[in-house]
């Protein structure tokens, strides 16, 4: 295989795996932002919490990795409802500044709490044998874990598509994103919708925190370091849209990977450059409305 083709395949494959991860971690943020207009800078904290839950479940309780991911999804989702009911609901009609401050405050408290209990050093997990190593596909072999990431991403896209486009509750969410007041006046309980979406979105963040350990490593500062990426994906995709988030994740995931392959020195300059360019041209994001 010529080296150019080889590089292109590597970029596309790694880019796709990275994009799927970005999609899973950002989609909840995007929907809640589109629905209630809350800029949630503590979204990364839910991801970090999920990651630590997976670490504890696999290492201390002997739960299998895949099962621990599901536990992270459920537990983080449930816990997030407590936060939504007590703190986030105060932000629905608050100014942007208040939203930014309260959620940064929550993120800091989460980082401090996890540093206190787990220490500042990176945590590692042992992924099961069937997810480690390489998978041989034709002339090339690919890291199994990234194939798994792409698989999980694809499954979640299918599930979210079904939930969003084919169920009653999905229709209500879309209606509320389009026009919250109108949705309320035809009798949709938007408040409850937000609780549900917030729980699912945070649960997905928790799940992706578990997925991230093998990919990025896990320290308490995960909550802030990778926050920028979720915000980029949501802003570029346009908040409130699954397809927008997917498009944003694909564009940024692939361009980031390409940048790192081709211009290793530039670090993550490209993901920001691409994001800024897109936002300058389309301020509301790819799928957003002005």
């Amino acid at each position: 295989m010529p080296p150019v083709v080889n590089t292109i395949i590597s970029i596309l494959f790694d880019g796709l795996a990275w994009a799927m991860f970005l999609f899973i971690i950002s989609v909840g943020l995007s929907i809640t932002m589109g629905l209630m207009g809350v800029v949630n800078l503590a979204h990364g904290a839910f991801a970090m919490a999920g990651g630590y839950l997976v670490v504890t479940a696999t290492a201390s309780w002997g739960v299998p990795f895949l099962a621990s991911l599901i536990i992270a999804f459920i537990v983080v989702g449930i816990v997030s409802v407590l936060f939504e009911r007590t703190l986030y609901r105060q932000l629905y009609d608050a100014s942007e500044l208040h939203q930014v401050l309260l959620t940064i405050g929550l993120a800091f408290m989460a980082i401090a709490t996890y540093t206190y209990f787990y220490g500042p050093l990176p945590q590692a997990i042992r992924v099961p044998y069937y997810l480690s190593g390489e998978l041989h596909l034709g002339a090339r072999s690919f890291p199994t874990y990234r194939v798994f990431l792409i698989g999980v991403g694809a499954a979640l896209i299918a599930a979210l598509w079904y939930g969003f486009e084919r169920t009653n509750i999905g229709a209500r969410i879309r209606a509320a994103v389009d026009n919250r007041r109108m949705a309320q006046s035809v009798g949709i309980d938007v408040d409850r919708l937000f609780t549900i979406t917030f729980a699912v979105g945070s649960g997905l963040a928790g799940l992706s925190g578990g997925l991230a350990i093998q990919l990025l490593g896990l320290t308490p500062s995960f909550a802030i370091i990778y926050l920028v990426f979720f915000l980029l994906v949501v802003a570029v995709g346009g908040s409130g849209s699954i397809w927008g988030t997917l498009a944003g994740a694909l564009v940024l995931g692939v361009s980031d990977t390409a940048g790192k392959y081709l211009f290793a020195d530039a670090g993550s300059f490209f993901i920001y450059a691409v994001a800024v360019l897109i936002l300058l041209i389309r301020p509301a994001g790819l799928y957003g409305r002005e």
Partner: protein
Amino acid sequence: MDANKSSSISSTNAVARARAADLLARRDRYRIVEALPWIAAIAAYFAFPNQMVLGSQTLILILFALSLDLILGYAGIVTLGHAAYFGVGAYAAALLITDVGWSEPISGLVCAAVVSAIAGFLSGLILLRYRGLTLLVLTLSTTIMLQQLGNLFRDFTGGYDGIPNLNIAPLFGYFDYDLYGHTYYLYCLAVLLVSFCVMRRIVYSPFGQALVGIRENVARMHAIGSPVHWRLVVAYAISAGLAGIAGALFAQTNTLVTLGVFDFDQSAAVLMMLILGGAGWLYGAFVGAALYMVLQNELAKISPPFWQFGIGLLLVAVVLLTRRGAFARLAKIDQHLP
């Protein structure tokens, strides 16, 4: 009797007008209370001679928070990337010493201020066209892009190791810098005082009032024909220039500058300081930065996570309290004082 009544109405009107004119004229007069922070700063110089390094850092952060206040507190622009201009100023001052070989400190500050004000003006022209999430992400990304660029040109900037050994010439060619930072402290205090007077003048000028107008009701400002975008860009450039001075002071007093100045934490920290002290109030930066530094110093001694938890909790508490209007009224006190 009737004549009396009508004349009393017109005189009430006249009195009201006179009072309003008087209020506007008196509002920007210096009050005695305003000397307090400066007296406290000078008192600190004599009371804590061993804490001058911490003191200089606090003064620098006050200036940084003050610069943010112009755009956040007065013009109402929420940014997550104010560290960009602090960093540009710091690097301008540092490169002036290492690459140009110009080590006179005050001209270094002026140079840094000009460079960051230009950076603020150019980026503001583009950034300030956006609002909401887009603006947050764009300001955040601009800062990180600068950091990445700095790392890319590491021959020039020293990468994450930074530029060490920045030796500035003695102040006015006479006052040298001692190990305990006494000269630095007075230097920072003087720069802060000058910057504060400039800032105060701007805030109470018609231009400053226009910024408050934009914050309170941008549609009405457009309607009365105010050049909203230009006002914001100019305010942004001035704010960037002041942040650049703070950054330059930071580089000069630490004799070191690294790419860490562009960290998100810096942008977040300055935002927190301003909020703790109260935005849209000239002395909010003083209260906030001093409180922040003291808390950081004391709580981090116990344990770093404790400090981080504390500041997070404080932020949440501030938001929940100001949502109910307790601090919001406090922060507005300045506008109602005669």
